[in-house]
């Protein structure tokens, strides 16, 4: 395509008069409150999930499956005979959801604010160490562009999470409607919502088209794009709900496994 060449540079913006320095702002509202709450919640969940998925079992021998319930952090369970006991089977799985969430457009917004203060809030000054700003144009943050690859991979454990939830309904030859099974179903549902509301999926399904009405194929993709767009509007809610529930699901199954609680269930 001809036209203005890509090499045409933008004019350099003349400097403004914004306050500089971490937290410098004219804002009077509690701009730091939401990032602070998010930081605490995210850090607690992420740290727990890492420790539980990678360290608990090798260090403490805590089981991650009990009575037909498998912790979602270990699904699909890959535990070959040659695997030493000091390596958690979660290692084979966790990098997928970790990569998916780390490169997620919503979480990027959140953690750039609360971990990197880049910016700490809208119209709020940043630390001076950000002067050599390159963000997603250079390593490591340029890797955020690989989000769609993690999206493809994330559907593999998601498929097995539904299988696990379904399998948990039958135990010892009986149908079991237990709280653990309900948690696994809710977990699979929320993770499905989180995955389907992904910005990259929305793009791949239909957003990359310029013409929605041009053919039957593009009209089908347009319909799918509309559905995913309605889910995408609530991507933040899906992200938090699924993160919290996957954490609680693991906590519940581990507490069951060590006998700290019992699973209320109807059996027939």
């Amino acid at each position, binding site marked *: *395509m001809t*036209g203005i060449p890509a090499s045409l540079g933008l004019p350099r913006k003349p400097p403004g008069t914004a306050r500089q320095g971490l937290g410098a702002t004219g804002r009077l509202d509690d701009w730091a409150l939401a990032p602070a709450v998010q930081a605490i919640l995210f850090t607690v969940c992420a740290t727990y999930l890492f420790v539980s998925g990678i360290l608990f079992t090798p260090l403490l021998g805590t089981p991650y499956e009990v009575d037909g319930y498998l912790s979602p952090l270990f699904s699909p369970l890959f535990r070959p005979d040659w695997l030493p006991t000091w390596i958690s089977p979660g290692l084979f799985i966790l990098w997928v959801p970790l990569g998916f969430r780390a490169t997620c457009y919503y979480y990027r917004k959140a953690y750039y604010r609360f971990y990197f203060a880049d910016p700490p809030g809208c119209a709020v000054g940043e630390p001076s160490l950000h002067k050599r700003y390159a963000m*997603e*144009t250079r390593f490591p943050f340029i890797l955020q562009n690989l*989000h*769609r*690859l993690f999206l493809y991979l994330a559907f593999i454990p998601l498929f097995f999470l539904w299988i696990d939830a379904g399998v948990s309904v039958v135990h010892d030859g009986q149908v079991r409607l237990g709280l653990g099974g309900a948690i696994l179903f809710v977990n699979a549902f929320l993770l499905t919502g989180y995955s389907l509301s992904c910005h990259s999926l929305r793009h791949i399904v239909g957003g*990359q088209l*310029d013409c*929605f009405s041009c053919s039957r194929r593009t009209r089908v993709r347009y319909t799918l794009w509309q559905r995913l767009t309605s889910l995408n509007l609530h991507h933040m809610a899906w992200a938090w709900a699924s993160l919290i529930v996957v954490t609680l699901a693991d906590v519940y199954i581990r507490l069951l496994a060590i006998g700290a609680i019992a699973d209320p269930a109807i059996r027939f």
Partner: protein
Amino acid sequence: MPDAHLRVFRGDSSTEGRFEEFDVPVEEGMVVLDALHWIQGHAAPDLAVRWNCKAAKCGSCSAEVDGRPHLMCKTRLSDFDLEQTITVEPMRAFPLIRDLVTDVSWNYEVNKTIQPFTPPTDVPQEDWRWQQEDIERVQEYRKCIECFLCQDVCHVLRNHETERPFMGPRYLVRAAGLEMHPIDQADRREYLKDSGGIGFCNITKCCTEVCPEHIKITDNAIIPLKERVADAYYDPIGWAWRKLRGGDAESGARAELPVLQGNPPQTDEAPD
């Protein structure tokens, strides 16, 4: 109703500037711009304020009220606690001209670097046929009134002097409107990646928060453009798929145009 206590920035590019305080009588429905007009009429006739329509459509009266970018004609005094001082400052991302007026001309220079609307040369305009669903996305971007509040709040423009300039959310919205136009033929992805600096945007959504037209700038313009750039440059699976199909770096979507079927394309060799 109590008086509003306003603290207004005064100064020009040759001075550091200062804040002057004014008590303004408040009437029902008053906006910040009304208060500034009262100040101009009663206390400081030389106060510089850029405004035009007073209907939130011209995008002229952008400023920062209590530290947040706002259109002053759309910001009601009743939204504030009138017991507290209301601070009005110019947009901080741009050079100051005087008082509340800033020099936003840089934005227009950026605009000139974007390849304009590029329809196919071989399809007469009367044969263009698109449906509402094809153009809805673009219509959202076209709501932009160029108030530059998004540019003002964008931390890349506000806080970072980068080695390569960043075009900012306003012009990513414009580029999105062109890229997603059903009959536009240009491919601006290389421009967006290399010149426009789309990678500098770290999608913190401040632009979306301040847009007076409620354009979902980040979700509907910037992220889709980032994904289009990823299509071309950061998707090994897509690259392999295109190689297998024998396609080039452009998405297959570009092959389809909403034009009237059955009319042969006109060529330069067509008889007069």
